[in-house]
Each structure stands twice: as C-alpha cells, then as structure tokens.
C-alpha cells in the first residue's frame, strides 16, 4: 500500500533505551476510517509505539507519517495533537483539580495559543457541544464535581469524552477498559464502536472479551515488532501468539 492513501504509516521504526530495544523494526499501516485493536504482552512496545506516534519519543530510525504526508517524527506533541491525533492514556489522566466541565472545555477544539485562551469567552455552540458530550459519557450530573472525586471508570469515560471534544481524526486509546466492571467494559466497547463510525481508532487492550466485542482487525506486538496481524480468530490461532501471549 502506498503511504499516500494511509492515515497512519509506520515503516521500519526502531527505538532503544540504554541498549534495550523497545521497538524493533516495526511497520504498520492504519487506513482512513479504520479501527484497529492492538494486543501483546507487557513490554511488547505498545505504549512506546503510542509515544512515538504522539511525538513523545523520537524513534532512532524509521518513518512515521500521518495522512500520508506529515512526518510525525519532526513534530512535537502539541502540533501532533493539533493535526488531529488524540490520545487516551493507560492510566486515566484527567485534570484532577478541574471540574468535569472544565476538563471538557479545555479539550474542546478551539485555538490553542496563550493569547487566544487568555481572552477566550465560551460561546453558545461550545456549551452545547460540552452538554452533548456530558450526556454521551453520562457525567451530566457530575459536571461541577472535581475530576479528582470521580471513580476510576468515570475518569476513563471523562478521558474518552475529552478525546472526543478534541474532534481528532485518529484516536489512540490505551487500555480503556482497565479497572472497569464487565458491564462498563461492554458499554465502553459500544461507545468505541460508535466513535469508529466517524473516526479512525487504535485501541490497545488486554481484555480479549472487549477485543472480541469490537470485532475489528487485530495486531499482536511482541518484543517491539509485529508478530501477527488479521482477524482476532486468525491472530489467536497463531502459534507464536499463543506462545508469547495468550497461552501462558
């Protein structure tokens, strides 16, 4: 596939920390509108891959392109976010001393410069958008609560809400179901599926039930490179995947 038509294009990416190769010649492609699930054992390089895509870590070698043309290795976190890549962290990271409302307001797509925010007045449209999101993530009655006082699951949802508020082209979602009850997990899967209708999504998850509920193409990483790729059934049947990940 030529990289021109891809949304996200990784080719031969490697990075090592003090001699330890966290990512080793990794290549992967996400197309427009695609939802992809990524699995793999601890230390497989899943989070490091996200760090590379979002500009937090610079690869030692390899190419990373967004929209086929933008070289992500030359951009920093903020501009990558502005390009339209949103990220949800493994450990839910919200602004604890802000209210739920403020968290969403901060995430809302709007000019990001300091002077723009200094003189920013919240508009009616923005309010509506936040209201919508609050309903979507079911935190309507918690809008004035400090984020610190939310439960773990609520924080996960708030973070997803913030992700949506950014209106990104590509969402990177790191373990959205961690620490959730089974019911919540299923709801989250439904939510992601909804989102995937209008956005491209990359989900990292350990929960096989969740992955199955998503029903999308799966990539299994191990030791920093792609071990297997395809449907969940295909990947789960792979000998090596069973050996390093599933079968243990």
């Amino acid at each position, binding site marked *: 596939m030529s990289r021109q038509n891809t949304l996200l294009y990784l080719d031969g990416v490697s990075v090592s920390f*003090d001699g330890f190769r966290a990512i080793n010649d990794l290549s992967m492609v996400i197309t427009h509108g695609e939802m992809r699930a990524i699995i793999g054992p601890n230390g497989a390089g899943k989070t490091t891959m996200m760090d590379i895509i979002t500009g937090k870590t610079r690869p030692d070698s390899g190419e990373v392109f967004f929209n086929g043309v933008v070289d992500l290795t030359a951009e920093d976190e903020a501009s990558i976010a502005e390009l339209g890549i949103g990220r949800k962290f493994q450990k839910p990271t919200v602004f604890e001393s802000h209210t739920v409302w403020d968290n969403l307001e901060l995430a809302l797509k709007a000019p990001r410069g300091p002077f723009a925010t200094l003189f920013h007045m919240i508009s009616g449209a923005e309010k509506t958008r936040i209201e919508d999101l609050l309903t979507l993530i079911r935190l309507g009655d918690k809008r004035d609560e400090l984020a610190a006082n939310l439960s773990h699951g609520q924080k996960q949802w708030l973070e997803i809400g913030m992700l949506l508020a950014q209106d990104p082209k590509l969402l990177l979602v790191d373990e959205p179901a961690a620490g959730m009850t089974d019911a919540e997990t299923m709801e989250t899967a439904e939510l992601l599926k909804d989102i995937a209708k209008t956005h491209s999504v990359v989900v990292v998850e350990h929960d096989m039930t969740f992955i199955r509920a998503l029903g999308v193409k799966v990539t299994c990483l191990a030791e920093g490179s792609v071990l297997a790729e395809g449907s969940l059934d295909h990947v789960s049947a792979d000998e090596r995947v069973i050996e390093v990940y599933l079968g243990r």
Partner: protein
Amino acid sequence: MSLARSLFALLGLVFLLGVQGQSVQAQENLDALRPLVNNLAKGKYDETQRQVEALVASGDPVVVPTLKALRAGDLYVRKADGEVFIATKGGKGYLLIDPLTTENAGEAGRRDVSKIKVNNRLRRVIDASMGSLTLMAADPKVRLAAAEAVFKAGDPEGLEPLEAALQKETDDDVRLVMEQARAAALLNSDRGDSDKLEAIETIASIGNRDALSLLIGVRDSTEGALQEAAAAAITKIEKSLAMWGNAQNIWYGISLGSVLLLAAIGLAITFGVMGVINMAHGEMVMIGAYVTFVVQELIRNSAPWLFDYSLFIALPLAFLISGSIGVAVERGIIRWLYGRPLETLLATWGLSLILQQAIRSLFGPTNQQVGNPEWMSGAFELGQLTITYNRMWIIVFALLVFAGLMLVLKKTPFGLFTRAVTQNRRMAASMGIRTPWIDALTFGLGSGIAGIAGVALSQIDNVSPNLGQGYIIDSFMVVVFGGVGNLWGTLVGAMTLGVVNKFLEPYAGAVLGKIFVLVFIILFIQKRPRGLFALKGRAVEA
C-alpha cells in the same frame, strides 16, 4: 656583604674548634661578647640587625643560643640594668638564663623585663646565618636545609665554603642541592663566562620558579652568549612550567571537586534518593564540623597526645550525632511530608534556621578553632606541583566515603531495602519491609554522611554557624547537575564542576569563573534536562 663574610669566618671557626666547644680561651671571650649581646636590646630593627652582624663577626659559636633565642622571641632585657637574658615564663614572671653561658640567672617579675622585638627581616638574617653555619653538620637533613638556605641567598661570598663543603659531601641528594647552590652563587660572582655557562645549565636543570627568577636576573644583566643561554633556558623552563600549570589546575580541580563531592554526597541520598528537598543538609555538615571541634577541645584539655587521632575519633561521633539528628528529623517532621516534596523544602528550611541558631546559642557566633593534625599539615613536591597533605587526604577521604556508600547501597540488605522502598513503597511494604524504618535510616545515613563531610571540611574552612549555608547551593547544583538519584552522577558532576572551575579561574578570576560555572550549569540543563546521568526510558507519567 659583611654579614656573609663574618658568617663564613664563623663557619671556619666552628670548624677549627670542632665539637670540643668552649675552651678556657673562649671563656675569656665571653666578657668581650657580653656588651655586644646587651647591645641587641638597643635601638630599632636596623640597630638590632647591626648588632646581630657584629655578634656573628665576633666569630664565636657561643653566640648561637643567643641568636636562636632572639629568633624565637625568647630574648629579654632586664630594664633595671640593661642586661640581656633568655627568658621563659615561670615562677613569678620569667626564669632567666644567661644567653652566653646558658646558666640559670634567677627570676624576674613580669614587668621587670621587656622582650627584644624581632621581625621577619631579622628572622631571615638569623636563618641565613644558621643555615650557612650548618653546611657541615653531621645530620644530612640539616646539611640539606643549609644548602637550600644558601641557594636562596645566592651570595657569591658563599662560593668558597660551599666548594669546600662539596668536596667533603657524601650524600648525593645534598650534593645535588649544594651544586645548585654553588651555581646560583657563581652566577652572581665575577668568575669567567665558561663557568657561568655551566652554571646556567645546572640551574636550568632545576626547572622551577626559583631557577626561572635566577635566570631572568642573568638574562637582564648580561650580554652575548650568556644572555642567549639564559634566554634559551628560560623558554624551556617556561614551557615545562606551563605544562605543570595544567597538571596543577587538574589537581586543584579534583581537590575542589572532592570538597564538592563531600558536601553533596549526603544530599545525594536525602534529596537524590529520597526526594526530600533537604535545606537543612548544610547544617548537618556544620554539626559534623562542630563535633570535630568539641572532640579536639576535649583532647586538648585532657589528652593532648591523642591530637593526631582526633579526626578518627570525630568521624564516627559525627556520623552518629548527625545521623541521629537526621533520624529524629525524619521521624518528627519529614515522614508526614512524603508525597509533598515542596513542603519538605519549607520545613527543612525552618529546621535549618533552628539548627543554626541552636549552634550559635551553644557555641557563640564566632569561628571555632579546629586544628590540622600533624599528618594533615604541610605539603610535598611532586615535580613542580606543590601538593598539600590536607587536600590530598580530603580527596582520598571523599573517594573512600563514596566507595563505602556505594558498597552499603549495592551490597548490603539495608541498601537493597532502601532501593526497594524508594522505587516502590507499596510493593516493598507488602513484601514485609518495614518502610518507615528504612526511611528513617536512609535519611539518617544521608545526614550522617553529611556529618562526616563536616569533619573533613573543618580542616579547610571556617567552623562557624554559617558553615552549612556556604555549601548548600553548591551541593544542590552538584546533585542536580549529576542527575538526581544517581550517585555516580554526583561523583562525576562534582569532579567536572571542580575542574571546570579551576581551569576558568586563572583566566577569568575567581568571581567570573564561578559565574561562568553557573551559566554552564544552566545551559547544560537545557541540553540534558535531567542531569548528566539521567536514565532514559519510557518515563513514568506525571
């Protein structure tokens, strides 16, 4: 130079008389010498110097004790009759000794005698005479010192006795110095050019600053071949001195670095490993220095023979005292503040004020005297380097402390527990490690090490309540520059800053040099925002 002439006359006399010393003949001389000795008490330094020269010119070795006493400031004059005595404190005032016969001469009240004043110039004159007198002494060390004194004087009058002494000399080391002294004297004499050219070669082979100054003198006062030879020798010496200058800078840098290391190493634990912004660290160092003071004070008063071991006694005490204060502080204050590192700054700042004031109230605000033991005093020469013993031992000590600390942290169960607790407290606790005690002991360890650093720093710096304040900023700089949480970083950081500082100082001066080092740190942190030895990796999310 009448002094020198008379000195060598005296020298000859001593030679003639040999060890038998006083004869009946000499006894008669005493009466003649007495007025000369008494004249020492008359007039100012110029006059005294003339009298010293007259005494030496008399050519009688019985004046030696008089001169020695004069140099030491033990020569007094009795006001009543103008008689001069060697006096030592005792009895009602002073015990008097006849300077010529060295017999007891009774006592005198404190107000009955007055001291014959001596200044540096007089001391030099007396030293020179003493030095020359001993060129043929039995002890080679004394002869060596004598030859060095003659070298310093560079007096052409010294040539002949020196040559005489050279013929008798058996010790090679002394011989070498004597030959150098002869060359120095020769250059100032009116001997032929070929002799002088040879002398220039001898001097050039010394290669130090004294030689340089001698040769500069020759270059500026001669012409032709001599001048050329001197100039060539000067260039050579200057080149080698420049090289030694670099070696010297490195040595000074390492020495400064070791001081920084000592000051910072305790902080590398309390701040670097535990994350406590410990502003009271300097005060722990100060307490260690005061422990040294107290130990020395006790030793001075009750067991002076122990003085050379005072530091070895002070070291464990300082560790224990600073360490237990550290443990108490951790238990009383710090443990409530984990997870709020910035508040440890506030509390330990308050603590440092309290500790400073406590020391000030206990010991007073002034400096306290901490002496160097014998083995930490003085210096030795290594090539053209002067290496002082206290600096050398401090470097050794700093490295030992560092190695010891590494050993404790890497090889003992306590070190393992410490690392476990600081890396993952909950996990460590669930594995049965008593984390509160590990915290307290780790903080105590850091404070204790600050305490023993204080023992070392007391050897080169003021022991005053402000001692700690002088080191706290530098310590933080070192730890941060090296990389927080990494002891190797602290070592390399301290040494780097020390050497950089010492290379800048000769060019920029002490003040600008320090400013440049600070700017260097600021810029360096831009390049490596986590210090010299930061660990790369998938950073823990804040």
